[in-house]
Structures are given as C-alpha cells and as structure tokens.
C-alpha cells in the first residue's frame, strides 16, 4: 500500500474515534510527536517530585507527612506509566532519560520554581495539580491507546493530589493571620506560573494544529487555561484568598472570567533554562542517575548470575 493511502486510512481511523495501538501503522511524525509529548510529560512527573520532596522532612504533622510521601510516590508512578507508554512507540527508556539529563528534552517549567514555605505544598496540589488535571482529563481521550490508558490511571490518582493541596490552603486560610498570609503569598507566587503551564497562546503554539488534527490534543491551550481559571477563582474566593490579577473579572456575556495577560518574557525565560531552579533540578536528576548506576548494574549482574546457575542446575538434573 502507498504511504498516502496508509495516511488516509490512518486519518479515517482517527476521525472515527478508533484508537491507535502500538503495532498499528502510523505516520512517522505522529510517532515522533507522541514520543516527544509523552516523554516530556513523564519527565515532568519525575522532576515534579523534587519541589515537593523538599518538604517531606518538614511537613507540619505526621498526617501531612504521610500524605505528602504518598503523593510524591504517586508522581513517580505516573512517570513510570508514561515512560512505558512512550516505550510502546519504540523509544528506549535510557535514551529518554538521557534526553532529559542532557537538556534536550523539556519538562513542565512550573517545577523550576522553588518551594519556599509549607503553603507552597498546598498551592502546588491545588493549582499545579489542578492545572495538570485539566490537561490530563482531556488526554484520557487522546488518540493513542497506551497514552490514553495511562492517563485514565493518572487522573484517578490525581484527584486526591488536588484535594489534599486545597485542604492545606483551607487550613492555613482559617488559621492565624500569619498562616493566612503564608497561604496568600503562596497563591501570589504560584498563580501566574500555573496559568503558564497551559503553554503559549494558540496562535503561538508550534505543535497545536497538527496535534488537534491527530486528536493527540483535543482542546487548545487557551481553552484549557480558561477552564482552569473559571474553576479555580471561586475556590480561592471560598477560602478568602485573593487571586493576584487586577484584570480578573467575571464576564457575564462570555460566561467566563476575563483575566490579565501572562508575562510571556518570564515564560520563555524559564523554558529556555533561566528559571530560579532549572540548574538545581537537572543537577539533582543527574546525580540520582549517576549515583544509581552501580545499583542498576549490580542488579542486572546478579540476575544474570542467578539465571546462569539455574540453567546449569537444570542441565545437571537432566544429565
């Protein structure tokens, strides 16, 4: 069959909402685009453990500490589901990790901001996971089967992340004036970076149009960002916190909140590696990878030795 016939049939399947599975024919660009997107998503889960891990030893109670450990462990799990999905497309795990470590692959810029106070753990769960959920709920319907299935698992688990974060903010907002100020300060610092998580405006987004045609993405960056603002503003009001945007206003006609312009210089600056923690995050990941090398090698050597011994024993028994 000619390539253009294959491409036509491929697009017909997409249009008919038939999922694409690993062994099905797919255009090279579809495969590459997915490997890029899924691996970056995986990297974000893994790097995302770092800002939160920062507070595990200093969580204010045993309850909070257990919750935070469970949440960070979930993020590791999410990274694994996603790496596995990328591997079904023929990517190798080590290559994907290397792309992260040598700076070739990106991860969500939000994790290049520091977690300065305990309230930041609340803000991350509520806002960062909240923004991620908007994107991930959409991706449960993405056209590539393994990616969609990974997303279903992730979304089931992610809901607890957002709720525990909001609960932290709620508790602080009801606390002493200092605690409330801490919650407000965290909201002030995390609000705009959270809006940036949805990426550039649709008009500026390089991969968007093709991704929509292939139903990898099903909603645009701006649509998702609007949905997040609409959902989150009332939640802030409910606990008496103020969203740091003077232009934020309910627009009766549109049925949506209007909101101010994002500082795109800051966005691109962080994407290009000049955020407050880019270097620290990558250094930490590189160190973990290098320090773990001997463990990976030893485990493999041990497994091979055991397998050889088993083979030898079964040979002796046969003889």
């Amino acid at each position, binding site marked *: 069959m000619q390539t253009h016939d294959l491409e036509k049939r491929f697009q017909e399947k997409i249009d008919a909402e038939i999922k694409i*599975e690993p*062994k*099905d*024919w797919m255009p090279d660009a579809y495969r590459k685009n997915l490997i890029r997107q899924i691996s970056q998503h995986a990297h974000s889960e893994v790097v995302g453990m770092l800002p939160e891990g920062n507070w595990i030893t200093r969580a204010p109670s045993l309850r909070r500490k257990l919750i935070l450990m*469970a949440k960070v*462990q*979930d993020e590791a*799990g999410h990274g*694994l*589901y996603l790496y*596995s999905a990328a*591997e*079904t497309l023929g990517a*190798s*795990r*080590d290559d994907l990790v290397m792309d992260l470590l040598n700076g070739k692959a990106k991860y969500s810029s939000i994790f290049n901001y520091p977690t300065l106070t305990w309230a930041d753990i609340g803000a991350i769960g509520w806002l960062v996971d909240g923004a991620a959920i908007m994107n991930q709920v959409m991706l449960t319907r993405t056209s590539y089967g393994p990616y969609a*299935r*990974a997303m279903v*698992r992730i979304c089931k*688990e992610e809901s607890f992340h957002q709720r525990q974060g909001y609960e932290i903010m709620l508790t602080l907002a009801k606390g002493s004036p200092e605690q409330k100020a801490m919650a407000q300060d965290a909201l002030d610092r995390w609000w705009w970076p959270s809006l940036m998580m949805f990426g550039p405006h649709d008009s500026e987004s390089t991969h968007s149009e093709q991704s929509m045609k292939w139903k990898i993405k099903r909603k645009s960056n701006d649509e998702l960002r609007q949905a997040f603002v609409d959902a989150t503003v009332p939640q802030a009001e409910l606990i008496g916190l103020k969203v740091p945007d003077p232009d934020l206003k309910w627009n009766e006609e549109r049925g949506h909140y209007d909101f101010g312009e994002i500082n795109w210089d800051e966005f691109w600056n962080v994407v290009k590696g000049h955020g407050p923690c880019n270097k620290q995050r990558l250094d930490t990941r590189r160190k973990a990878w290098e320090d773990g090398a001997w463990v*990976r*090698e030893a*485990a*493999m*050597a*041990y*497994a091979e030795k*055991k*397998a050889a011994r088993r083979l030898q024993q079964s040979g002796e028994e046969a003889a």
Partner: protein
Amino acid sequence: MKKEWPLWEVFIRSKSGLHHKHVGSLHAADAEMAIEHARDVYTRRNEGVSIWVVESKYITASDPADADPLFEPAKDKVYRHPTFYNLPDEVKHM
C-alpha cells in the same frame, strides 16, 4: 557495562474470581524484582490480589494487518448468538 533492565508486562487480578488483566509494563532485572515493582507501581490503591509478570519479548501478538482475515469470518455467523433464534413467547427463560 551499560544495559537496560528488561521490560516486563504486568497482569493484575483485581479480586479472587476475576481474570488477570494487563495493566502496563515496567523494567526489572528479574522476575522477582518485576513483581516487587509491579506491586509498587500498579497496586498502590488495593487494585490487586495477585500479580503475573512476563518478559515482554516472550509475548507474540497478532499483526494488525492480518486483522481482517483473522476476525472477519466471525462477523457473519449471527447464528452463534442466542438472539438469532425465534422462540414462542410462552417459553419464558431459555
């Protein structure tokens, strides 16, 4: 020595009486480690009571290009389904 741990497919029985069902994959040096990792990755919320792991390279899959010759023949055999048969209403359950 630079070598990736092999890839394993993970199957979970969610409760006694049900089939093991494919849930995903992971890397592990051997079968024992694959089960331990599967426990951590795929059953953090009581999703299972039993785990199977098999190295991915041992799975043989049908070719999607053969889907028509493989599965088409079943499509026109409606008489294999109970609803194909018209029985008198008096026969309540059969």
